[in-house]
């Protein structure tokens, strides 16, 4: 791989906020196509960040920082790319369930999904099933991400799953859950399609579900 791409990868992996822009410009100056910079440089760097998060050398704040580093680089690349190439992996409607205002986890998940190629429609916190379904219909998204931290509010997950079923969309739209009070078991109980313990896993699960 070209030296300059490895530098971009390293900048993302090592959270080099101040250096990333210059390194991306250097790649572009060498004539490397933007999509290649994203895939071989940025995404690979993020993958390494994800691995370090899972092995415990990186923490949440580092994930956030990696996201900020990528956010510095993306506008430069998007400008040079075909419209439509960003968000190429599909649309995800993301929200924290009704009655729950915990947003940090949802925001990190949204940011990672975004930098990993999804178009994220973030509806915010304390969002009703009705609003989520309306957004799915309006945007044509086939993936829903639900964050739930309060065990008193898990009913919100069931309501979303039920409203997807009632709308006859069960075969097309997949619901993934995460947050402090969720688990693989809760996923089964609520009839959701996926569960992710961390933001890194969230990306993997959405990748898996969008491939099916």
């Amino acid at each position, binding site marked *: 791989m070209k030296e300059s791409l490895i530098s971009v990868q390293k900048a993302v992996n090592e959270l080099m*906020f101040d250096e990333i822009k210059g390194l991306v410009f250097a790649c572009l100056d060498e004539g490397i196509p933007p999509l290649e910079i994203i895939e071989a440089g940025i995404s690979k760097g993020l993958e390494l960040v994800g691995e370090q998060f899972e092995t*415990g050398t*990186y*923490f*949440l*704040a*580092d994930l*956030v*920082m990696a*996201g*900020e580093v990528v956010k510095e680089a993306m506008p430069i690349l998007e400008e040079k790319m075909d419209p439509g190439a960003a968000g190429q992996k599909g649309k995800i409607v993301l929200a924290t369930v009704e*009655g729950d*205002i915990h947003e*940090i*986890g949802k*925001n*990190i998940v949204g*940011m990672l999904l975004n930098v990993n190629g999804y178009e994220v429609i973030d509806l915010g916190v*304390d969002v009703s099933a009705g609003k989520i379904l309306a957004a799915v219909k309006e945007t044509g998204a086939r993936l829903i991400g639900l964050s739930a931290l309060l*065990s*008193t509010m898990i009913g919100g997950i069931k309501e979303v799953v039920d409203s997807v079923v009632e709308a006859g969309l069960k075969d097309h739209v997949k619901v993934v859950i995460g*947050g*402090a*009070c969720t688990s693989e078991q809760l996923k089964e109980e609520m009839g959701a399609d996926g569960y992710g*313990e*961390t933001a890194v896993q969230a990306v993997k699960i959405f990748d898996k579900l969008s491939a099916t």
Partner: protein
Amino acid sequence: MHPTERIIRTLEGKPVDRVPTFCPLVEDRTFNEVLGQPLIPPHKAIDNPITRFFMDTWGPRLTKPILQPILNIGMEKRIKAQQLLGFDAAWSMYEETFIIRDSKTMVRFSGSVYDIIDDGFGNSSYMYRGPGITSREEFEAWPYWPVSDEIAHRGYKFFQKMMKKYGGKMCLCGQASAYGIQESLLWALGFERMPIWFMKEKDLVQRYIDMAEELCMKTIMAMMDAGVIVILQSDDFAFKSGPMMNPKLIDRLFGASYKRIIKAVHDRGGKLIFHSCGDNTLLFDIFIKWGVDGLHAYENTSNVDIFKEKEIHGDQVTIIGGVGIDYLLTDRSKDEEIVDEVKKLIKNLGPGGRFMIGPIHSMSSIPADKLRVMLDAIKKYGKYPISV
């Protein structure tokens, strides 16, 4: 044995007559069930055109004459409810951090913004909306940071009264208008921006930490002047599967402040219980190094293993908490299930002492009756020597 003696001996690792009980505050529903009266006026008292008009017109000027007396009554009633339930130790709070901005929002003096809402049971409550400080300019211009001596003095007055009324019957674990240094910073700047601040605005972050330390230190010393022996310091450092930040960074940024605070408490013969939500497994060594006497939460829905912690750190720090609020302390559980969990916790964590049992958090869905079931079971099975 007097509850305060039971608590202090347990924090010191000395033998006691039974496993002590700890309550991490009670919320409106529980409180209303115990006292039979609403904690604060129903939300409709605030959410009507006349009140809204005054709140929008006078905003912050209503904080002192209207909001603060309501909060003071509420804080006292929470303490009273915990005492009537029969806990040995109660998280007791003096709350003067809020300022009314208008009919829909409040701010905390430490930099965060809140919506005024109905809690779903008809009580007025608040919901964190987001950071109040998003730039260096906003940091410099933030108008609400308090004079710490004044707040400490009012905290002193409050605890002097509370100690007189309730201190004879239980151990008040005091917190006075100073929240965790890290969590206040997190609420003020927003988690997503915090890493950038750490990198780009190191001087401001340090200034914030210094101001928060001063506030904690002064309010804690004032509570101790009023006779409070056990201090409750709360700072949420973790989430479900681990610390939010690198433990080394946590130690580097906040360690010096916490060490100074805890040393000051110890120098005056006090004890400090530290509360942190989530899975703090990677942080326990650090908290112990800072000097904490007890650690609260061991949140059952997180990945922390309270039983393993007993093996690893059980002789260095007092483990506090353990009883889940996600299911056990809700309307959905059966009494037998609570009793079984209490027995399991006591059997595994009781031997050797240094354990206090109680809910892992406060929550508006906790029924008073379920707390009573828990407390009865503790009194029945918690006597030393443990024979569950």
